């Protein structure tokens, strides 16, 4: 219980620090939302009036605390560009990003786990070497380029994907998920390589440990040793890696949404930054941070469940 409490406190402090950081970043970067909203023809007078209206002329600290006060009530403010509540905008886009992340994660698991085990079992064989080369290559390709390659491959060579034919989840959930598989691949492939390598090394390390020898001497067959003992232990460090990976996937979606023109949080974030749409940027960053911190939180708890020694530290 105390452990959870402590974690919750850290959780809140992390979010606060993030909000201060993004707030500060917005003070430092050039450009301002009033000017961007009113455009090239705006008079100085009009810009001043709008700044006043948006509260930009107040002291930075007062503005931050005003904002914080509203946030605690669930009000993230209004988007200047879209003339609607920041939270409403996010509500629709977060579905896209979350599904993209989930599909990527599933792809990572169903592809990386068998490959990792396979390459550890067939250590130094042709299969292992082929997997190694493939992972090495896919880790070296930048995700946005991978996105373009996948679009060309599935869109114009194999023709099972129509670039740009995105369907909103409100219209057709199956079509929506199908479209997301391809961008999800672009997010997943570099991570798959990472996981395969990690899993392979983890299994090989476990196989060298004493308990494996003991198990063998007791007359267990290799299969039982592998599935009952080695994998269970080899997976514990993997959980941490997966937690970190989820955070990474969230970051990866920002770029991939750009390449595939997906209306997700990442694209909204980029558009809002370039329009200096402060309310939206701040809300999205907090949203993403919240998701990442939550994932870490869950990983911690999972860890505790798998290895009770953790709580005692």
């Amino acid at each position, binding site marked *: 219980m105390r452990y959870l409490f402590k974690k919750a406190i850290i959780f809140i402090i992390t979010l606060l620090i993030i909000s201060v950081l993004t707030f500060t970043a917005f003070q430092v970067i050039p450009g301002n939302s009033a*000017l961007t909203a009113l455009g090239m*023809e705006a008079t100085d007078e009009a810009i001043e*009036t709008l700044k006043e209206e948006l509260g930009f002329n107040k002291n930075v600290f007062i503005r931050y605390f005003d904002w914080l006060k509203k946030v605690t009530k669930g009000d993230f403010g209004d988007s200047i560009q879209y003339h609607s509540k920041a939270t409403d905008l996010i509500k629709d886009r977060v579905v896209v990003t979350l599904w993209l992340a989930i599909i990527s994660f599933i792809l990572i698991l169903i592809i990386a786990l068998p490959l990792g085990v396979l390459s550890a079992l067939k250590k130094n064989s042709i299969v292992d070497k082929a997997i190694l080369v493939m992972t090495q290559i896919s880790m070296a390709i930048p995700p946005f380029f991978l996105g373009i390659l996948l679009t060309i491959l599935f869109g114009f060579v194999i023709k*099972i994907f129509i670039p740009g034919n995105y369907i909103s989840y409100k219209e057709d959930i199956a079509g929506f998920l199908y479209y997301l598989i391809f961008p999800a691949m672009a997010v997943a492939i570099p991570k798959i390589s990472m996981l395969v390598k990690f899993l392979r090394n983890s299994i090989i390390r476990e196989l060298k440990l004493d308990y494996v020898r003991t198990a063998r001497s007791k007359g267990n067959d290799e299969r039982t040793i592998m599935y009952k003992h080695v994998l269970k232990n080899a997976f514990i460090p993997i959980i941490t890696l997966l937690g970190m990976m989820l955070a990474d996937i969230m970051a990866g979606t920002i770029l991939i949404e750009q390449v595939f*023109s997906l209306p997700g949080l990442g694209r909204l974030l980029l558009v809002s930054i370039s329009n200096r749409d402060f309310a939206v940027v701040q809300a999205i960053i907090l949203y993403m941070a919240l998701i990442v911190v939550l994932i870490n939180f869950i990983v911690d708890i999972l860890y505790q469940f798998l290895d009770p020694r953790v709580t005692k530290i």
Partner: protein
Amino acid sequence: MLKRKAIMILLILVLSITLYGCKGNMKSTKTVTIGITQDLDSLDPHKAVAAGTKEVLFNIYEGLYKLDKNGELVSAVAESYEVSSDDLVYIFNIRNGIKFHNGNNVTANDIEYSIKRSAGMLKPSDPMIAVISAFSVISDVEAIGDNTVKIVLNEPDTEILYYLSTCDIIPKDYAEISTKPIGTGPFKFVSYSPLESVVMEKYNDYYLENKQQIEKVIFKISSDTDSAFMELRSGVIDILPYLTDAQAEQIPEGYYVKEGSMNLIQGIFLNNEREPFNDIRVRQALSYAIDRQKIIDIVAGGKGEVLGTNMFPGFKNYYDETLVDVYDFNPDKAKELLKEAGYDNGISFTIKVPSNYQYHVDTAQIVVEQLKESGINADIQLIEWSAWLSEVYKERDYQATLSGLAAEVAPRKALERFNTEAGNNFMNYKNPEFDNLYKTANNTNDENERILYYKQMQAMLTKDAAAVYIQNPFQITAINDKLDGYTYYPIYVQDMSLIYFK
């Protein structure tokens, strides 16, 4: 057992995915999808400032008058007008029976409201409204009865009709204009999802004899030109404007391209108050140091029109094309001028370029190479659009910037910014002679006489080398073979009502 189940599930999944992929692109035949790469900044016509937004909204809203493809004013919401003999009072007669998309008649009150709203005359005024600065000459707008509107000016303004055409007419006190737009244009609004699309459908009660065939238009918002081009190749997009030269060469089968003038003044705009550009000889040297035709050849495969002054070539009567030849490409002359100005070892400076316009970035790279020949050393600094707006355009904190000035409805717009006191005189150009000419031109009612003044001002801007004018780029559009009627306007417009199926 478990294993078999897992394999079964996997098989079903794979099968359903492949089958789904085979499902064809079900699109009704009367729908046209056009690709845009910039999200809208507002659906409220009085709040939208981006050219990319106005281009789309042109299909929904109309002003009293509107520009046609030749840059001429044609009647829209208003049927006709009369002017008083002192040019101060305009009476507009509303088109008989014209209706908004919601079925209500357009009344004089709606027009009074719309004009007052975009002139900033409504109290309390909404600070988000982009006030049309030329409306400062309007002293009063008054609805007379249901069908006529009287507009009174402080002083005569020969181009006021052009500016009135930029003020879209919307229903009075309609609160949902920015979410559910209502106008009088040939298309009515259906839906908008940020970062996805704007959907419109044909307005059946449009006042013009409805020859348009397109039932539904989808403006599809892509994240950039590369992804938009992919979507064109996959057949999702039917029309894609603003192609790069490289893309135009790889047009997929089933599409053709149409080229037209972009009506943009692309140039290296110089801060006339900053060293070294406070010296006219340095500015002239820069003009001699670049080879404009070569820039067009490299960046756009020769598709562009060399410019010699600050005027939109779309206004054919006003534009003085002879000024193109004032500066030829002559590095020796450039060096000589620099020496005269006391820069024996050449000069170094920074060009700020808005990073969201790849076209300008490409141009800047070639400019930098060309300048080296004349001993001029320039660095490119890429900045975001909103930083450009505040640093370069408003605060005027720059030496040189390579960018474009988009065409506006009235020719005067191109020259207005060079007035010493103009708020948007971001080049800090100061020439009392110019100011006087500008004033005289504005008070001249005779168009031919005014054109003469305008040409004198253009010559002045070229001689003083207020900026290095490069070109009016071409706009290349890819169009599906099934479609025809795509038309270029002298302003930024995507007129979907003219598109038809072959």
